[in-house]
């Protein structure tokens, strides 16, 4: 094995530029494994544990960039390094011959004086200051950056509330404002349903399901996951609800989050009490009794929340939603039974490999009290923690977007390679009974997911055919036909490969669980 590492001293790149560089590096022939990271302590320890540490890169400081490579035997490292240099140069290239790019918010405002939104994705330790500068200049803020200290988040949100400005985030991956999808968001219909969400993938799922059902979104306000915790106290979640309540183009309000802190739930209930519009809430993992006595209609899955919103949006009978879902459940059981007969006796376990964290949570929730022992790297509900995230145990539901899988690599919604390797590993395992996946479309995600996933599905088929097994692969596709990737085209291609594509993650999870249940 041929492991090399180099330090680029004092070179600063924002995290996503690093990810894009990392993806290109990983694609080079002869590169078996690679990491491109800033030289922080945590990153270095990850390099050590993944076997990419060399004495050369040990002295890197946190303002230094590390490139670590595991090369195939016989590959000339000089060649690879010079190609990597080209990637960096292309990334660094100034706007030669292009118009002047402002270097500060103030000079940007000279160029676009009536700007009203700052989209911030700089490294977390600077992001708070940049957000504060933006607020002081009267801009609403979408704060994509993560790792912003919680004290800073509170300071920003209190300041923004005073000034009647939004702070969406930190760690807000998606929002739709005035019909414009921001950051990682889907192109959905405009309509009369307004969303406040403390969960990025959750927001994407409900907005797509609503759009695919023929309704639309007025505004979708992301708050970042920490907003509904005790410390922040739901400042922006509450402000978002108030703004939608006052918005003449919003008739239905949909709230999406993991269970908020108790005092935040109370605040939400009390704000909603004064609202005449129907309000639907899905707080994944909360007790079905959480909102009893309030005028919030509680949904238990993202799909149910979207369906309820659609019913209210169309002024249809909301109680019909339960019937529709029940009928669909019967169809799922039928599908499951058809799959089960094709399985061999050794096949016992569910292996869910998620790129969206909220989907991973939702799937675990749907397994709760239905399957036996469930393991996850990010246990939710009654699941247990995996000893080694790289090795599945019994029923395993993984969030591949978690830091331990993404250090020095792009997010799995962009770069499918880590998940693809894992899909093959699960397919090789004779105990795997069903593989469950999510595919998330929209701006920011991989622009050509078929090229990533189809070859792997074919490979899985080869493996299982050789071993005289059948392995069902179930997935959901979060997206719309207006997304640059086009959902229908994708679904058609996946079904042609024999995949079971469901309309929502809840439906896909139910099918996967149902297969296990009918073994």
């Amino acid at each position, binding site marked *: 094995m041929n492991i090399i590492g180099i330090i680029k001293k004092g070179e600063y790149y924002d995290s*996503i530029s690093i990810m894009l560089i990392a993806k290109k590096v990983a694609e080079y022939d002869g590169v078996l494994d690679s990491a491109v990271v800033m030289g922080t302590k945590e990153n270095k320890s990850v390099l050590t544990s993944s076997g990419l540490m060399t004495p050369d890169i040990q002295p890197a400081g946190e303002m230094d960039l590390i490139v670590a490579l595991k090369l195939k035997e016989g590959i000339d490292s000089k060649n690879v390094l010079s190609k990597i240099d080209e990637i960096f140069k292309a990334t660094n290239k100034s706007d030669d011959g292009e118009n*002047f790019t402002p270097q*500060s918010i103030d000079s940007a405002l000279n160029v676009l004086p009536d700007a*009203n*939104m700052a989209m911030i*994705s700089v490294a977390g330790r600077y992001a708070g200051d940049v957000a504060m500068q933006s607020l002081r200049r009267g801009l*609403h803020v979408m704060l994509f950056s993560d790792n912003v200290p919680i004290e800073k988040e509170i300071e920003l949100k209190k300041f923004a509330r005073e000034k009647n400005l939004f702070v969406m985030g930190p760690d807000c991956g998606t929002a739709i404002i005035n019909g414009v999808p*921001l950051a990682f968001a889907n192109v959905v219909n405009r309509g009369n349903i307004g969303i406040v969400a403390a969960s990025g993938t959750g927001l994407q799922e409900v907005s797509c399901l609503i759009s695919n059902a023929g309704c639309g979104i007025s505004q979708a306000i992301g708050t970042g996951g920490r907003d509904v915790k005790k410390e922040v106290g739901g400042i922006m979640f509450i402000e978002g609800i108030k703004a939608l309540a006052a918005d003449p183009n919003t008739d239905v309000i949909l709230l999406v989050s993991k269970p908020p802190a108790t005092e935040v739930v109370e605040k939400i209930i009390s704000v909603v009490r004064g609202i005449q519009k129907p309000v639907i809430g899905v707080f994944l993992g909360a007790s079905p009794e959480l909102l009893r006595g309030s005028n919030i209609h509680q949904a238990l899955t993202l799909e149910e929340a979207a369906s309820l919103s659609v019913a209210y949006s169309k002024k249809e009978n909301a109680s019909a939603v339960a019937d529709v879902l029940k009928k669909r459940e019967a169809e799922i059981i039928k599908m499951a039974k058809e799959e089960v007969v094709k399985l061999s006796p050794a096949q016992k376990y569910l292996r869910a490999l998620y790129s969206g964290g909220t989907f991973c949570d939702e799937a675990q929730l749907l397994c709760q009290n239905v399957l036996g022992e469930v393991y996850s790297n990010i246990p939710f509900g009654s699941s247990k923690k995996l000893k080694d995230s790289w090795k599945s145990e019994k029923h395993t539901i993984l969030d591949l977007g978690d830091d331990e899988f993404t250090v020095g690599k792009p997010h799995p919604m962009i770069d499918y390679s880590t998940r693809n390797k894992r899909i093959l590993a699960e397919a090789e395992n004779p105990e795997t009974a069903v593989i469950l996946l999510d595919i998330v479309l929209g701006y920011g995600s991989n622009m050509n997911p078929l090229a990533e996933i189809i070859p792997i599905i074919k490979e899985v088929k080869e493996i299982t055919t050789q071993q005289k097994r059948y392995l069902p692969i179930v997935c959901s596709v979060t997206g719309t036909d207006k997304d640059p990737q086009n959902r229908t085209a994708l679904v058609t291609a996946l079904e042609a490969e024999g995949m079971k594509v469901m309309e929502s993650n809840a439906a896909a999870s139910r099918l996967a669980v149902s297969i296990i249940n009918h073994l």
Partner: protein
Amino acid sequence: MNKLFEQELKVVNIGLKLFKETLDKQNVKSVHVDWRPPLFTDDKAMSIIKSNADKIEAANKQALQKILNSKPFIVGMGKALDVIPGMKKNLLLHAGPPVTWDKMCGPMRGAVIGALIYEGIADTPEKAEQVAASGQIEFSPCHEHSAVGPMAGIVSPSMPVFILQNEEYSNKAYCTMNEGLGKVLRYGAFSGDVIERLKWMENILYPSLKRAIEKIGKIDLKNIIAQALQMGDEVHNRNRAATSLLYRTLAPSVIQTTDDKEIAANVLEFINRNDHFFLNLSMGASKISLDAARNIGHSSIVVVMARNGTEFGVQLSGTGDQWFTGPSPVPDALFFTGFTKEDANPDIGDSSITETNGLGGFAIAASPAIVQFVGGTTKDAINYTLKMYEITAAENNIYKIPYLNFRGTPTGIDVIKVVEKNILPFIDTGVAHKNAGIGQIGAGVLSAPSEPFVKAIIGLSERIRKQE
């Protein structure tokens, strides 16, 4: 908040460019900010700076007023020993922050050797080196004597200098006459012809120009620079227009005051054949304007950027005579045939005083003729000037750039902006060979190193803390 829902969404994108591209695809109006982390994030120093923001701003306003109101004139000429404050027979002035003989780079040593031969203190280069190393000779920065010198910037006692006066604040400044290009003392050459030329300048050029200037009375440098900027000069790497304007001013008086026609013709031809004759004067004019803005408590405005070929030094208005230094970088340059970056000396000279005054690299958008130094296109040059507005406190009231609709040049570098935005001053420069005696090998541009600016902001914060 609901107002946002009624407006067209217009986005300032700070960070990942991908998001800007996505917005472009959706025809959403947006502008991308090429954001960089600050140079320095020491909380203690920065919090002192932040909590004194109002005082600093007021001080900077005052400093800028002085820089912009300054009126530099040539009022006469004299010998360095007679006119420069603190000049002594055994003193050599040099460019940049203080430096000792043992730390001097090749070209500066070469210029010292040449100056000692020129002064008659040594008769061979070997002897000159011995004298220079012996401690008999004192060295001091030009900047500490109201003077500036290009490249090595050596001013020796017998050298004739222009005397500049600031009609607004009555301070003075001094600079030598420019020797021309090729093998010259300021690039570290000290061969016989170099010394001979210096002698000719002392004995023929100087008396003739001195008489001419006496006859004219005074020459308005600000006026010449303002016109030159509109004629394609940035008065650092291009001085052709300014030199021509000066020539037109001097010529009649040179002829009237010089009896020998041959000498008058030689004097005028010397100026005519040296496109950089004005450089020393644009530096002097800058020096006198910035000196007027010295010693304003709390001010974060840079009043000196200067290099001695070893170190790059910065002084601030609010930090008195304190130098903040760091290693001088080697410029990116176009090299004369036969030379490469390997041969280049780290950046050297007081000429970055022009940038400090909103000229030179800061005014490169005014000088399309020399864009090959900055990447080849006029757009590159314009972008460099636009970038410098990010770190300056004002736009010049007199020096204007035609292409930018006569916008004033970016003037008054604010060290706080440099550090917070991580944008370093952009400097036009000539390149000296690293070995003594060879001379100029190219010209180009560079960004100032960060270290002096980081040290300067810490120095300012300490001074403010002590005053409190």
